[in-house]
C-alpha cells in the first residue's frame, strides 16, 4: 500500500481529532501536496463538527421526580424483602433451639429415662429422630392442605 492509500485510511479519524501526534503529522504532510486528500479531510472535519451539533432530544417534564419516586419505592420493596428473610431466619433458629430446650426439660423432668415400647424416648438420638419425623410429617400434611386451599384462594 502506498503512502496515499494509507493516509486516506486515516483521514476519517484525523477529521475527528483521534490521531496521535505522529500520525497527524504524516497526514498533514501528505495533505500539503495531495488535493484529493485535502478535500477529503475537510469533509471529515465537517462530519465531526456536524456530529457535535445534533438536534437534542428534550427530557420529558417531571422525569426527575418520577424517577426519584420509583427509586424510593424500589428501596422500600428491597428493605421489606430483607426484613422478611431476617424474620424467617429468626423463626427457624427459634424453632430449633426451642426444640432442643424442650428436650432438655423433658430429660430433666423424667430423670433421663422415659421408655415407651422398649425405646427410651428422651435419649438424644431417639428424640432428634422422632422430633424430625414428626416435624416433617406435620409440615407435609399442612402443605398439602394449604395447597388444596390455594385453589379456593379466598378461603385461605
Amino acid at each position, binding site marked *: 500500500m502506498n503512502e496515499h492509500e494509507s493516509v486516506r485510511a486515516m483521514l476519517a479519524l484525523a477529521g475527528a481529532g483521534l490521531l496521535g501526534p505522529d500520525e497527524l503529522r504524516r497526514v498533514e504532510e501528505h495533505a500539503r501536496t495531495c488535493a484529493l486528500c485535502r478535500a477529503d479531510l475537510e469533509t471529515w472535519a465537517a462530519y465531526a463538527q456536524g456530529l457535535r451539533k445534533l438536534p437534542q432530544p428534550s427530557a420529558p417534564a417531571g422525569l426527575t421526580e418520577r424517577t426519584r419516586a420509583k427509586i424510593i419505592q424500589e428501596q422500600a420493596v428491597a428493605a421489606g424483602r430483607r426484613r422478611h428473610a431476617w*424474620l424467617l431466619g429468626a*423463626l427457624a433458629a*427459634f*424453632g*430449633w*433451639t426451642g426444640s432442643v430446650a*424442650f428436650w432438655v426439660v423433658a430429660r430433666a423432668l423424667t430423670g433421663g429415662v422415659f421408655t415407651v415400647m422398649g425405646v427410651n424416648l428422651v435419649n438424644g438420638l431417639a428424640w432428634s429422630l422422632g422430633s424430625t419425623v414428626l*416435624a416433617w410429617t*406435620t*409440615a407435609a400434611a399442612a402443605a398439602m392442605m394449604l395447597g388444596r386451599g390455594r385453589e379456593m384462594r379466598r378461603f385461605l
Partner: protein
Amino acid sequence: MSRFREEMKVIPRTAWAIAIILYVGFVAFTQMVWPHGWWTLFSIVMPLFLAIFVLLVGYVNADARRRGMRHVMWTLLAIFIPNAIGFILYFIMREPLLRACPACGTMVSQGFAFCSKCGGALAHSCPHCRAAVQPEWSHCTKCGAGLQAL
C-alpha cells in the same frame, strides 16, 4: 425498629397475659422445686421460650384475622407443627393487609378491583373483562385485551 414495635401492637392483650402468667409461674415453680445454683439461670431463660411461643401464637391469630385469613386454622397450625415450621409457613403464605374501600369503608382484600359490599371501583380494571390491572400494563393479563393509557 419502630416497625417492630408496630407489629408487636398486633399481639392481643390476652396473649400477653397468658405469656406473663406462664413465665412467672414457671420461674416460681422451678425455684421452689429446684432452687440450686445454675438452675436459677436456666429457670429464667427456659420459660422465655414458652412466653415467646405464646406471643407468636397470639400474633398469628390477630394478624390472620386482620388480613381476612382463616385465623383458627392458622393458629392451630402455628401451635401444633413442631420446630416453628407452622410460623414459617404462615409468614411465607400470608395475604397482604386489608384496605378500606374509599366509598363505603368496608375492609377488603388488596387484590380486588371492585368492593364486595358497594361495588365501587378500587383499582384500574380492564375495559373488557373487568379484571384488576396495573396502571403500567399495556395488556390485560386475564383476557389479553389491549389497554389504553390509563
